[in-house]
């Protein structure tokens, strides 16, 4: 039988946390540093606004070091490397078969030694601009930005993670460096290694690096959100129209942990519009949606929202259906004991499935660290959820005041 997952944790004096999970029969070692800093963190304490896309720009440019690029070093030691920026996090990773400790040193060098010059920042601007242009041709991506700008008007989350061609011009080596020092602090990051490595050796290597903070830890800036917009639409040169229905959940109305909240909202949405719901079938059979239809629940930092989207030939009917069917009364009828049991079994299965992937484990462990949640205890969270919890959370979520929409209409029709 495959051994159960075991996790070993070390917290260093500077606040940096290391977590190691053994995967005995796997060939690879997956290493990841995650920073609690993403595209939304553009507002400073003094009211100054950083240019959109600065977190993503740092992610690109940290790979540059004096006289070398970190990806070359990883390549030398046999590792693949990558990095990504989300709304609230930035992550740097490697995947290797050999030399895990040398690759760990390279990963730590990557995140701890910025080298931003006028020249290398200028050359990166062109590459990122191409990335932005690529996303602008993707209707799903455009629609996500549009629905977020309805849910959170004028908030940084409604801007493209990579910024805009204009905001890129405001990014320079100076604001990159000051932003880096503000957020890349040991208490604001964590390291996860999945695979056959020794935690003592890992700790010894981490201690070789000067991860001391130079700046004070940034305060959590809670800017009040503007009211949700009424919704909107635009046209695009696409073959099929697409619609999004958004639900914003303001977190000051609940004391639940974000992780618990995310599981519960997912279960509510699965009951109402998941593939095993009556309404999914009704929507499909009436030609309002096709199988691109999906929903996504996000609960990160001070944001919590649901986006339900899909290709639709009937955008108005899509919106009307969501508005009239996402109600607590309908949920109460749909959420039978049998349905609740099915949804729970499905969630337990998903948890087991994810353990086939070192990548999935590492990313979840690193992300959950920022929410004081142990990955290995997720099963207890799922197990502890009751029907009552779902009905309670539904009162918070399924409120028409939380709803908005956006249609991206095909110019061809």
């Amino acid at each position: 039988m495959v051994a159960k997952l075991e996790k070993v944790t070390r917290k260093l004096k500077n606040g940096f946390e290391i977590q190691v999970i053994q995967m005995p029969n796997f060939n690879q070692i997956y290493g990841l540093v995650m920073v609690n800093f993403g595209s939304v963190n553009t507002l400073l304490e003094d009211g100054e606004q950083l240019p959109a896309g600065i977190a993503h720009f740092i992610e690109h440019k940290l790979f540059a070091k004096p006289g070398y690029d970190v990806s070359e070093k990883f390549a030398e030691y046999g590792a693949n490397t990558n990095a990504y920026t989300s709304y609230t996090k930035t992550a740097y990773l490697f995947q290797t078969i050999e030399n895990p400790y040398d690759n760990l040193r390279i990963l730590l060098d990557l995140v701890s030694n910025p080298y931003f010059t006028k020249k290398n920042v200028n050359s990166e601007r062109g590459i990122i601009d191409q990335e932005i242009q690529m996303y602008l041709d993707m209707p799903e991506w455009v629609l996500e930005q549009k629905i977020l700008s309805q849910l959170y008007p004028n908030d940084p989350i409604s801007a493209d993670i990579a910024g805009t061609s204009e905001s890129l011009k405001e990014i320079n080596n100076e604001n990159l460096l000051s932003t880096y020092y503000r957020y890349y602090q040991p208490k604001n990051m964590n390291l996860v290694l999945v695979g056959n490595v020794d935690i003592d050796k890992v700790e010894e290597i981490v201690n070789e690096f000067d991860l001391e903070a130079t700046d004070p830890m940034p305060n959590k800036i809670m800017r009040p959100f503007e009211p949700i917009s009424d919704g909107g639409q635009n046209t695009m040169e696409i073959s099929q129209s697409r619609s999004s229905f958004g639900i914003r959940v303001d977190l000051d109305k609940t004391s639940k942990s974000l992780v618990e909240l995310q599981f519960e909202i997912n279960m509510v949405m699965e009951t109402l519009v998941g593939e095993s719901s009556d309404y999914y079938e009704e929507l499909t059979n009436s030609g309002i949606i096709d199988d691109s239809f999906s929903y996504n629940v996000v609960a990160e930092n001070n944001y919590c929202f649901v986006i339900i989207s899909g290709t639709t030939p009937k955008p108005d009917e899509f919106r009307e259906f969501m508005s009239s069917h996402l109600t607590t009364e309908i949920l109460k009828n749909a959420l039978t004991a049998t349905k609740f049991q099915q949804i729970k079994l499905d969630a337990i299965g998903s948890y087991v499935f994810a353990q086939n992937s070192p990548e999935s484990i590492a990313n979840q462990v690193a992300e959950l660290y920022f929410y004081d949640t142990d990955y290995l205890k997720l099963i207890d969270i799922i197990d502890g959820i009751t029907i009552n919890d779902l009905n309670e959370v539904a009162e918070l979520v399924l409120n028409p005041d939380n709803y908005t929409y956006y249609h991206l209409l095909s110019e061809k029709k």
Partner: protein
Amino acid sequence: MRKEIAKNVVLNIIPMQKFRTIKVQIDFLRPLLKDENAQRRLLANVLSNSTKKYPTFKKLNDREMELYGTEINVYTRGLINYNDLAISAEFADPQFLIGGDNLIKENLELLSEIILNLNIENNLFEKTAFDTEKSNLISNLLSIDDNQDLVSSLALNRLIYKNNVNKQLPIFGTVEQVENITNQGLLDYYKKVISEDTVVINVVGDVDEQEIINIFEDGKLAEFFQKERPTLDLKFDNFDELKETPAIQKEHKKLNQSRIAEAFTTEKISEDISFLAPQIMNLILGGDDQSQLFQEVREKNSLAYSVSSSYQPISRLVTIHAGLDANSLNKTVELISDQIDYIKNGNVSADQIEHAKKVMSTRRLIGSDSIQHYINRSIWDIIYPQSLLDDEKFRVELEKVDVAQVAEVASSMKVIAQYQLIGD
């Protein structure tokens, strides 16, 4: 363990204590014919929509959830000159669950339901299931036009297979083909598939071999899978005509980013050259972030965010894809050509060769951390075993590759197709 249940029906069981799931995949193989592609894809979708016992999409999904979220997947893909229709069930290993003791048996029963116990009414597929899946597929096909990477890749495919009518159309068919499929026609096609196709069954995970054999020899599936099927005939492509006159196409569209897609043939120069030399050449050309294309086109000249190459060992084709600004198209085409010349002229360093070898070994080992790896390998082992190398042969062939071999492969490259999608 491999067992031939009947002629051209193979059961392959790979017991291993590595994964936390068990996967059962049944692949149906028959010659790839342009007129069948759409039917085959629609059939896969209709089968996975509902069954006699679970007669609606919801009821089938309810059952999947009850089985701790079994994932039923269907797809069709081209394998050399075959069309592969695959239906799989992946589910949590019961050893990690409380109360999942019968999960293997129950999942195999579910798979058997999907393949054999069809949702039939009045001698046709149940109308809602058929109509819904038909309209879903049409909608998906229309959406392709909004995915520019796919548009560019399908256009290149059309050019590469200009002289092969069966391969120039997408493997999932066209809107027009799907529109013309009738319920009766699809059911008739199903009967052909189930009785004539070569069948490859793979079971991977912590399973008892005898238990699985018993299920496939005595269960509902046995009746069908104990019938022998005709032997398939492998046919390889020939690009000689395109080597003389490459297929070139330019299209304009209202887009922010333009695309270039190019295809090149490579030749098997001599028996002395390593089997892996073309893969190593490809890695150096555009296979990762240390490659010539990535470094020269993206990093040094900031011309493209995405630029890469890939190599298909069976057809010996190298393809290159780049996404870039319309103003940079000509410069990028030149730079691509310069990188091929760089390799051709023997300028590749020993470090580049070593790096590419390391990447190949690493990818092979990381690939084997996925349950699907074992299924894919088993299918290739049945349809074209020459394409697989065991670990020792892989090591020897990799060792053999040097700068001269890589240069020879690059020298043999001939452009056969080029597609440009120009954003206006």
